[in-house]
């Protein structure tokens, strides 16, 4: 193994890590807002990928152009999921923790079933998109263009999210609600509206990630499952609820995955990610940047 191949795989690990961060940040946002883990997060990613695929197949819209549309559609979907299911789950008087876990799990299973019903379990992929299959050479390192653009989209999204949370009224309402949901009601902010918009925003971010993922990854009803676990690890690694933590967690996961793939057989590459998660929480039970 030469130094070049090591740099090569670490570079692609970094790109993938930024994408993992983008996949996970919606989860972190929602958790930070209302202490709920969305166990259907992977399925949100799955429908975003299908939406991108169908926009490409039926309307010849390139995934890159479809991304904002998909994000908007997912925004609506996320808000509706909150209003129809999660809103009631967080009100449960008995077994509150279980109820929110299993109601979103139920949603995940339904979404997978619906995807199988309408789209069949076949593997699909977006062929001949603008970026698909292209690579670019940077200082002698070959980087896949879709992942590179995905990483840039992720950085832009994190930057925008930072400005959004700190500079806009809704962002401030979001922050205030996560600090103290009871108090914001007193100043006339509708908690439910903020939660619904928070879910919308979280889903829109994973929608953005899904549109990018659709360029270079197979699309099938169970595709969310594997990415969901990585997203949970990413978020927990960074510390639940920390948006910056998701960014850092994503980069760590990407680099660890690339390193493991160099040392172990490819089918074991996820073991590295899981082992690092366990190591981190055993030492810091609140994740790297988690407060509470």
């Amino acid at each position, binding site marked *: 193994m030469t130094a070049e191949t090591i740099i090569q795989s670490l570079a692609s690990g970094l790109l993938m890590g930024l994408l993992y961060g983008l996949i996970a940040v919606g989860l972190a946002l929602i958790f930070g807002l209302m202490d709920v883990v969305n166990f259907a997060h992977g399925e949100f990613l799955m429908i975003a990928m299908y939406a991108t695929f169908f926009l490409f197949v039926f309307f010849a819209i390139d995934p890159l152009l479809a991304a904002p549309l998909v994000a908007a559609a997912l925004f609506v979907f996320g808000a509706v999921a909150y209003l129809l299911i999660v809103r009631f789950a967080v009100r449960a008087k008995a077994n509150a923790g279980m109820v929110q876990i299993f109601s979103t799990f139920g949603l995940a299973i339904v979404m*997978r079933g619906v*995807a199988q019903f309408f789209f069949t379990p076949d593997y699909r992929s977006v062929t001949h998109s603008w970026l698909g299959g292209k690579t670019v050479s940077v200082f002698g390192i070959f980087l896949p263009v879709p992942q590179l653009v995905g990483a840039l989209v992720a950085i832009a999204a994190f930057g925008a999210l930072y400005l959004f949370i700190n500079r806009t009224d809704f962002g401030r309402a979001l922050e205030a609600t996560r600090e103290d949901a009871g108090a914001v009601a007193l100043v006339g902010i509708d908690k439910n509206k903020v939660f619904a918009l928070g879910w919308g925003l979280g889903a829109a971010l994973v929608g953005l990630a899904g549109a990018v993922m659709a360029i270079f990854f197979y699309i099938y009803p169970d595709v969310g499952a594997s990415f969901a676990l990585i997203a949970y690890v990413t978020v927990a690694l960074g510390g639940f609820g920390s948006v910056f933590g998701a960014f850092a967690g994503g980069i760590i996961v990407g680099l660890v995955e690339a390193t493991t793939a160099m040392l172990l057989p490819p089918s074991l590459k996820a073991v590295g990610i899981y082992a690092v998660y366990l190591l981190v929480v055993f030492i810091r039970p609140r994740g790297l940047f988690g407060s509470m």
Partner: protein
Amino acid sequence: MDTNFARSRRRDLIVAFCLAAVAAVVPLFVKDSYVQNIMVLTLMWGALSQSWNILSGYCGQISLGHALYFGIGAYTTTLLFTKFGVLPWFGMLGGGVISAVIAMALGYPCFRLRGHYFVIATIVIAEIGLLLFHNWDWAGAAMGIEIPVRGDSWLKFQFPRSKLPYFYFALALACVAWFVTWWLEDSKWGYWWRAVKDNPDAAESLGVVVFNSKMGAAAVSAFLVAIGGSFYAQFVSYIDPESIMGFHISLLMALPAVLGGIGTLWGPMLGAVILIPLTELTRSYAGGSGRGVDLIVYGGLIIAISLARPQGLVGLFSPRRKEAAR
């Protein structure tokens, strides 16, 4: 304890005995092998969920990684039998002991974690186990292991001709899991677990040894689940990592309890009696042609129950359990 409570516990025991007796007679009249198959699975998942409920329901440590113990039970029995000719009975016991030891070894670091950090740790650990078995060539790797038929007897725990013996073993397992739960409910451990679940800090300050009581719950729970796993391996006579240790196994163990009532004596069995036949039937009627209809029904049921009756269905049958199902 007040006499009322003692009386209701005695009533639970009598009801369980009657139900078991009735269940034992049923397959003598219902000879259809498809229906018998569903009955075996129902009893098995009921027993598994009952065991899961000890750690996750009573003690409140939500594990979504119990597939690990199920898999260890299945693999221990199968490997000992196919590679060394060890009778499944010893493998079953061995798998149970190994699982209990592993559960405690994993519990040692994990029980310091709380909430979602704990849940995700359980998922991740089971996933690591799955990946390791996937890459373990001696244990059949991804291809899995076919268990050869070497007899038709209780000694070898193989019954190629009839499902009845499997049914009686599954019934016995369900009875044992139920009885262990019944017995623990009123023991020192049972009270500790509920205290740990409700408020670990308060429990600690009142002298409950929180850590040890979690370890105890994990060991009992893992032991029983491993027995279930090695039974399942004998029953289907073919195991591979995905079908035995996949995440869906962990979920399937939790769902009957969620449906029936988490942390209740009757919840897991009641949930299994509703959920397993329903799943099997939708799968065979809609699964083939309908592509995913079984998942939609299944997921919809989970959403409906967790939103409409978070305390589980068990309270519908006996109002006095409402308190217990908190």
